[in-house]
């Protein structure tokens, strides 16, 4: 490319206290390209984008837009220069309509009033021009995530964007929605819009990127393109060491059924039945993966099995014993371990120290407490051992767990749950939002348990995770197990279609709750 870059960054440096979040970063973006910014969590991608978008100001360095040096002090400046950002956590007002969300901050006025009609027309025009269909008067909270993201993109287009920053846009999407998004992105670049895509998913990078810049620990490691690189090479650049992308595990040696769920029916907190007579069995030494798009009952299944949501009907056997009731402590005493979906809400007490979080379920037992007293010494010693064993990066056992990164918070939960003798592990979205290094570690731990003969129930909306880890895969759709079969009977396409509720399962499988094995 010999043309002039649209956006150039020279020597951008940003410090937070002692830490260098951005260290002399050079970056450039050409018109009409998709430039992927790849890096682990905490590598400084978001800091850099916040600087471009005016959410934080750099300590040193220049931003050059079309050859002119510019100062971007606040989002308003960035928007004025045609820079827009779609944040990972959508910046939409749930109770507003699509049209209201799009025009917020950039309203069409008629005297003092809002000119809702004219704004609607303009937005309608936009949606036709770019092939983005959304219902103008729908409330955003009623839209699926894929459409919400579309609203975010239209927000940017409404402000006549030249540069669109997408922060981890695929984290919440189904495979089909991801395809849709990529199609839209291609559409946008054809119309001359440049896109900066932030991600840590290697597969996507290879499909969509024109150029790739890899960041690690606040520095740019290098810039390349998909044709000149490979997934493995990018992973090494990203993590700084060789990463095992392929999970190696011993062949399945499933033994006794340890977890037996029969005709399990659960209602959500609004008394809507969201789980209809779900039955499945998980054996010792088996990883049973439940795939499915978010919101098809997996959350409720996991909460109910963990004793956090009452169930209506059904029966749960753990290690051959029928559980009279599902109560977290009873379950725990029977060798149940739970890695919850929302680690900050259900997994940790954020203001508590690492040490206290590691004994949240065993604090009442010796050696951690005697009669009325907690044995602080023992708790600290225990924590120090776990921190070392599970490689948790923290300044010490007394450090509040809220100050840890997502990956290390997850490791705290894992160290707590797996450091007992357990027979069954429920892992719900165990690697959501984590970087490659942490994902690799957590996958290794799960496989280690499986090899030790623990029954693992894995729930994930990451299809790759399900496929690479599971011995048996079930697909959940609309509160039912649509099909289940050994993992080598499935292709990724079949799974994707089943998750979207499209096609009947392959011939070798059975419908409904009957399990084929």
């Amino acid at each position: 490319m010999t043309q002039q870059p649209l956006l150039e960054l020279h020597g951008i440096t940003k410090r937070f206290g002692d830490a260098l979040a951005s260290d002399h970063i050079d970056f450039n973006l050409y018109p009409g390209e998709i430039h992927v910014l790849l890096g682990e969590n905490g590598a400084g991608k978001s800091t850099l984008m916040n600087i471009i978008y005016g959410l934080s100001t750099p300590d040193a360095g220049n931003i050059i837009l079309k050859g002119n040096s510019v100062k971007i002090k606040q989002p308003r400046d960035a928007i004025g220069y045609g820079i827009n950002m779609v944040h990972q956590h959508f910046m939409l007002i749930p109770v507003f309509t699509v049209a209201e969300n799009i025009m917020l901050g950039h309203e069409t006025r008629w005297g003092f009033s809002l000119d809702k009609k004219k704004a609607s027309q303009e937005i309608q025009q936009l949606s036709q021009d770019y092939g983005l269909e959304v219902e103008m008067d729908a409330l955003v909270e009623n839209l699926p995530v894929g459409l919400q993201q579309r609203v975010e993109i239209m927000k940017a287009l409404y402000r006549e964007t030249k540069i669109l920053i997408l922060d981890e846009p695929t984290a919440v999407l189904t495979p089909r929605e991801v395809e849709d998004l990529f199609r839209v992105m291609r559409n946008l670049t054809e119309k001359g819009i440049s896109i900066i895509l932030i991600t840590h998913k290697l597969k996507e990078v290879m499909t969509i990127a024109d150029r790739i810049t890899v960041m690690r620990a606040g520095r740019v490691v290098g810039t390349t393109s998909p044709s000149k690189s490979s997934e493995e090479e990018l992973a090494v650049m990203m993590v700084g060491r060789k990463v095992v992308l392929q999970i190696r595990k011993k062949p399945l040696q499933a033994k006794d059924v340890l977890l037996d769920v029969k005709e399990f029916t659960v209602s959500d907190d609004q008394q809507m039945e969201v789980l209809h007579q779900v039955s499945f069995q998980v054996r010792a030494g088996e990883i049973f993966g439940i795939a499915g798009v978010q919101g098809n009952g997996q959350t409720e299944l996991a909460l109910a099995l963990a004793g956090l949501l009452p169930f209506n009907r059904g029966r749960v056997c753990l290690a051959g014993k029928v559980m009279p009731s599902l109560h977290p402590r009873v379950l725990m005493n029977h060798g149940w371990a739970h890695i919850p979906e929302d680690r900050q809400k259900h997994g940790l007490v954020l203001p508590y120290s690492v040490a206290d979080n590691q004994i949240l379920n065993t604090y009442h037992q010796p050696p951690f407490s005697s009669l009325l007293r907690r044995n602080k010494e023992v708790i600290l010693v225990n924590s120090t051992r776990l921190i070392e064993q599970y490689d948790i990066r923290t300044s010490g056992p007394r450090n509040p767990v809220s100050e840890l990164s997502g990956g290390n918070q997850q490791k705290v939960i894992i160290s707590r749950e797996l450091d007992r003798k357990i027979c069954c592990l429920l892992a719900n979205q165990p690697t959501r939002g984590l970087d490659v290094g942490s994902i690799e570690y957590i996958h290794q731990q799960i496989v280690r348990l499986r090899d030790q003969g623990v029954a693992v129930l894995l729930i994930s909306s990451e299809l790759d995770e399900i496929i690479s880890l599971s011995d048996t895969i079930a697909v959940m759709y609309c509160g039912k197990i649509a099909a289940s079969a050994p993992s080598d009977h499935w292709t990724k396409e079949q799974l994707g279609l089943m998750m979207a509720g499209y096609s009947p399962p392959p011939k070798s499988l059975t419908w409904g709750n009957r399990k084929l094995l």
Partner: protein
Amino acid sequence: MFQKYINSRCGIVRGLSFLVLLVILWSYFYDSAITEAVLASALRQSTPLALGALCGLMGERSGVINIGIEGQMLLSAFVGFLVSVWTGNLLFAVLTGVATGAVIGLLLAFMSVSLRIDQILGGTVINILGFGLTGYFYQVGLNTKGKLQSISLGPLQDIPLLGPVLFNNPPITYLTLVLVLVVHYVLFHTHWGLRTRAVGEHPRAVDTLGINVFLMRYTNVVLGGAIAGLAGSFLTLEAVGSFERGMTNGRGFVALAVMIFGKWTPIGSWGAALLFGLAIALQTQLQFGGQTIPHQFIGMLPYLLTVVVLAGFVGRARPPAAVGTPYTKE
């Protein structure tokens, strides 16, 4: 599911309004003079509640809980009264009352937006300040040269039932009706209102669109304070004509119930304020009438209504999502 509850809620409100209307008509044919008096009294009683609710909802729509309305009203009532005593100029007195409310609104905004103090504490501080300052500086025996008088709107006054109730009122009561409409218009039909509601729901989103969250909150809380100041002025300069210790008598808190009952909308709140006003007016009227029920029980009526309304409706109405949480830039 959601739709069903909306419908049923609308049903409750409609049914209730219809019932009230029926009772009013029946009693009008029974005894027109008393009915007119009670309704006129209801409107006047609803005025400080409606104004207080407007103050509350402007704060909450932008994300700031204001439980200091009581204190704001009390201080404004007191200052307005003093100014009226010293200068004898009622218009000037009302304006100082309004300004006092605005200044205290500024204090609340400073505490809850800039200092990020817990908003309930901030409001409590203002309430204690209100009771403390007015109690300390209050002197017995001060008298004003009068209060705001009713202005009758000519021929409109002669409409039966409605005329004497609606079109023969003092200025602040009229102004309240106008303010309800103005705040409704601003909130739902201007860009300012769109931004205000957005700030109360998801301040970070608004921030990323280049809108100043702090400025939005400050402005709304201060303007709300001015309206609470008007409510205070109403009490001393229009309704009573003098000041007493603790004369707001819980109206600032009832105004919050009114706001919730009105689902954080100006017109809904006005309707709710009328209902509460009617309860207060009835209570007064009933105390004059029969001796069969001890007056303490009748006096409970408005507060009973508050409890019923809050218990029955709080769970269903949805407050702005970000209300009560101070905003911090990253």
